[in-house]
């Protein structure tokens, strides 16, 4: 009986914290998605899409739509990683970017925001500048190997939106990234 009460109490606290953090995050740029969290694509930019919009992306059937959504999920969930205080596109990063290029060759009409991020070390301004270089260089890599007129924009968050919140190399490595967000 007592333990049930305390579980209920703990749940109430969690609900309260969740409510508070939901309130305090209004208008904040959406946190980057990572991992398989089953996000609903398109929801962030205004609910279900009408047929005309799908056709504009070159999608003409339910099967093609399912294929697109699956590929879009993989596209958004895979980040490009960088070394400490660096924005050189490494060999593993090229592999990931080549997959992005393949996706964009198939769906050249989709708009993409490339976010540049950094680990928590160093100052705010330098990290925004560093994240800008990461996003910019990832963008240039894609543009240089794709002749179509892509809708790519970049934004740097510096160290302001970490994907992992730990204070160790494992977390820092996850945070030194270019993250891709689709807008369709």
């Amino acid at each position: 009986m007592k333990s049930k009460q305390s579980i209920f109490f703990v749940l109430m606290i969690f609900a309260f914290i969740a409510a508070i953090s939901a309130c305090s995050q209004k208008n904040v740029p959406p946190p980057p998605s990572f991992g398989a969290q089953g996000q609903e694509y398109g929801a962030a930019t205004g609910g279900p899409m009408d047929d005309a919009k799908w056709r504009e992306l070159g999608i003409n059937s339910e099967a093609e739509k399912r294929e697109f959504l699956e590929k879009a999920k993989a596209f958004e969930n895979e980040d490009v990683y960088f070394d400490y205080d660096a924005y050189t596109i490494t060999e593993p990063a090229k592999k990931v970017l080549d997959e992005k290029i393949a996706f964009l060759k198939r769906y050249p009409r989709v708009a993409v925001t490339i976010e540049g991020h950094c680990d928590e070390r160093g100052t705010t301004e330098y990290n925004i500048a560093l994240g800008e270089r990461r996003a910019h260089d990832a963008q240039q890599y894609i543009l240089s190997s794709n002749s179509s007129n892509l809708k790519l924009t970049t934004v740097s968050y510096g160290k302001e939106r970490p994907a992992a919140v730990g204070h160790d190399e494992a977390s820092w490595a996850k945070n030194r990234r270019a993250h891709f967000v689709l807008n369709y």
Partner: protein
Amino acid sequence: MSQQFIIKTVRILSVLFLALISLGFAKASSALVELEISPSAIQRIPIAVPDFKYMSPEQTQLAREMSDVLSNDLNISGVFRPLDRKGFLEDPQSMGLEASEIKFQDWSRQGADFLARCSYQVQGNSIKLDGWLFDIAGRKMVGTHKSYAGELRAWRQMVHAFADDIMLMVTGERGVFDTKIAYVQSVGSVKEIFYCDFDGNNPVQVTRDNSIALSPSWSPDQTQIAFVSYKDGSPKVYGVNVHSNSSYLISGFPGMNIAPAWRPGRNELAVALSKDGGQDIYLVSPTGQIIRKFGVGFGASISVSPSWSPDGQKFAYVSNESGNPQIYIFDVTTGQKKRLTFNGNYNVSPSWSPKGDWIAYSGREGGAFNIFIISPNGSDNHALTYGARNESPRWSPDGRSIAYSSNKQGGAAIRIMYSNGTGDWQLTRQSGAQELPDWSPRRNRQ
């Protein structure tokens, strides 16, 4: 928030004042000389600050409160060392105010070089404050008797004004007691701009955008704060009038718009932009007109964090063109750039001192970040802090102190230290985390 009180100063000896000090007050003048030579040689001057004398039985609790504020101001100045009141022999309410009534010998025995004596009179919603500064060894009043009058709720600013006058009389230069410190306050992932008085009192929230606001920078006239915000999705530079709270876009070019730094004496700002693909430092008007691209960028290098020299003819900034971030100086007149820092491989956040003699910055040593100062010619590089994460130094307008952000007491907060690294104290006491301070210029006084 314009002037809430009037400063009426009886100016009797204004011109001859410094000469008098050097002739008559040998002890004080020797301290003056040391102050000018080197911050590490500061010998603080002992000063007695008894409770203020109330001239009417209203608001008697202010007798102690105002004395506390004055003592704290003088202590923060780094010039004075207020004595412990417990050693004082006289009852502050019966003790006199004029030179003829001051027991100089008693104060001398108690170790005081100076005595700050004040009285106040409250009438309804207004207050009049009178202040005298006495030189104990010289057995006379220093400078002139000061008088301040205004609304009762502005009493704190009047005490700050007397502290400013004491600094002016003893050192020849005003204090920083009417200045503000802007900073970034974060709760969760939301960051807003705040500012508070130089002593940490009266925190005021400036932005309410529920976004990420960063890098506050005061305008030279202390009326505007430029800052960076993501409220429109990407980092853009905005300005806000701190009196009306109305904000406006300064620089909203494609890409990154960050690191605003108001140019001293001019209505222009340096900002770091990436609008042309590469990063560079630009000079813009407060409405975002590009006045000049400085051309400090080098290929794909990073260029960020400009900080102006006091004459506005040079700025220090961060570039990684050597392969890692270092401080450089750009000369606006000649168009020449020169690398300043060579120790370590991560030196960022330069801040040029208001007298031009130092550039403070944050440098990485192993896993720690510390505050360093270096002369603009590259000599005398040395650390002021040790361990922890100490970042984003910004000078006080008199160059005696440095505000910076630090996690040495756990969560990130703004701290203040003298420019020799001593006297460190915590400015911000809010919950959440505080970072990226910027110390305002002084307000002009009539």
